[in-house]
């Protein structure tokens, strides 16, 4: 405790954006996560640029070849290069996950912020609907949506969006409620700022960080969800590669050519591990680190 509650500058500094970046940079978990993602990104870019093969394009001469120099991940039942398909598939999966999460994140955040800012009956009713949505088991919700919307990548994105609306809504609501009580928000109100401006300029910048953490963690789960749905044939339709589609393929001839399923599965695991560790690192950087500093 410092005199009269005023804290010296070195303590204030560690609470700032600069301070958080420093913690993130030095955090082991974040470092590992970032490395993993960077490696994955490098592979994706390089293969995308330099692969002599396309993701589709059958080559019946080379069916189910094990990993070799010309095919580092081997070939699948159509003779296609597995590595190239994994790379393209990863892009597809990531895109689907990203789009879904972005949509869900935006909708959820808006709902949460409005709810948290005004409170009252609006807040109570809205959050009950959110709770309702939240209480559905994830896959059940996704499957129901598939039934309603039909198959395909777009539906998967929408399913991911719907699943994440409650997450973002709850998070942004509680943070908005907390931030609303801050003095600088009161000051903004007294200046005559409209609620929309206050939400956008005063509150949003201050709640963005945990939302970003949620986003990065959600990306990983989105990929898993997409993979799961595509695996059972409800998501991305072949021949477009996606990680789930490829795993479905690989499953069929696992005895003869285990590398397709295994290597695809490992690639999925790699990407998701990276995303999760990155998210964890971000979360650590944002936590009340001040507690540790002062002890």
């Amino acid at each position, binding site marked *: 405790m410092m005199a009269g*509650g005023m804290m010296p500058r070195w303590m204030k500094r560690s609470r700032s954006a600069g301070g958080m970046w420093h913690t993130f940079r030095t955090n082991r978990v974040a470092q590992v996560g970032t490395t993993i993602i960077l490696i994955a990104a490098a592979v994706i870019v390089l293969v995308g640029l330099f692969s002599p093969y396309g993701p589709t394009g059958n080559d019946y001469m080379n069916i189910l070849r094990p990993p070799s120099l010309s095919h580092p991940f081997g070939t699948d039942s159509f003779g296609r290069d597995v590595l190239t398909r994994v790379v393209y598939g990863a892009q597809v999966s990531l895109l689907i996950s990203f789009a879904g999460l972005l949509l869900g994140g935006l909708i959820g955040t808006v709902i949460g912020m409005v709810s948290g800012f005004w409170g009252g009956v609006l807040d109570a009713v809205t959050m009950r609907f959110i709770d309702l949505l939240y209480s559905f088991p994830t896959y059940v919700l996704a499957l129901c949506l598939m039934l309603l919307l039909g198959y395909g990548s777009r539906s998967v994105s929408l399913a991911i969006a719907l699943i994440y609306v409650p997450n973002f809504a709850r998070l942004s609501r509680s943070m908005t409620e907390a931030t609303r009580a801050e003095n600088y928000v009161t*000051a903004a109100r007294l200046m005559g700022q409209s609620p929309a401006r206050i939400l956008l300029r005063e509150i949003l910048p201050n709640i963005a960080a945990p939302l970003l953490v949620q986003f990065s963690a959600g990306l990983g789960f989105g990929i898993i969800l997409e993979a799961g749905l595509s695996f059972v044939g409800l998501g991305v339709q072949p021949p477009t590669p996606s990680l789930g589609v490829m795993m479905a393929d690989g499953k069929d001839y696992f005895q003869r050519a285990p590398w397709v399923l295994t290597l695809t599965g490992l690639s999925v695991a790699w990407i998701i591990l990276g995303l999760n560790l990155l998210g964890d690192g971000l979360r650590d950087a944002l936590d009340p680190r001040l507690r540790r500093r002062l002890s």
Partner: protein
Amino acid sequence: MAPEPLSPGAPVSRRHAPWLVDAQNVTVRFSKKRTLGAMLANAPASFRAVAEADLAIAPQEVVGLVGESGSGKTTLGRTILRLYEPDEGAVVFEGKDITHLRERQLRAVWRRMAVVFQDPLSSLNPRHTIHTSLATPLRIGARPGVREVNARVRSALQRVGLPMDAEGRYPHELSGGQLQRVALARALMLSPALVIADEAVSKLDVSVRSQILNLFKDLQADLKISFLFITHDLHVANYICDRVAVMFFGRIVETAPARELFRAPRHPYTRALLATIDDRGADVVQARRGVVDPNAAGCIYQSQCPRRVARCGEAHPPTALVGAEHTLACFNPG
């Protein structure tokens, strides 16, 4: 001199009317959560943060509101700002009754008022640069061009004694004293008629406090603004205010011109506030403090008061005029 009881809302001195702000008989209640047992025992569901308070501020006047924690001074200040709505009484600002206005209508009124908070760090958006924090008030309503905004921001920095390079900084890079200067600069951006400073120097280091107090004093004299200075420190109030009101547990117990209050306080509580460890015969600071019961009949201070007489337990003493501008609510003053 026989004190004449004041009717609620009657101005202390005719000379000051019309008032800039006139809080008349204001009562603000907050509801309490009660346990089942309390409900059965008919314990009150709310407590009065402010009870029957009369406070008026003249144009260009600095009024101090002094009290300890729980005295209701912050609540009264916020009620004058209409951040709270009084349950009883009225708040009149520049002749207009703003007691029950909705937020939309209040926005116009708010442009004539400003606040400086206690904690300099939390009163500025941590993600905004100082420039942005100062420019924001200008961007509402008629929007001046970029050049004019920049010019006004820079002159505001100059006015409060900050270097120009502070403009691009973030709040966490500045010291407490510098942040309060920014807060003051922001408050003055739209040339308000009233600035409310809520414990504006309490969280500052002692060596910086006098700088900020002097800044307040100088700016007030230059710009001729009214100030409501809320503080727990009677010495600070004496330095900066023309008139001081002392609050205890929601009630205003004494108001007087600052010097007069400081030199010759009459209410036992005011005197207790001025007592220190070295006072001989400091009967006003009792060894055992009783518990204040706001629901009991009689004077709110009776359980603490060394000058208590029988009459004090019957009804809360009415506010009476005991000097040209000195009001007092006490049956047995010193």
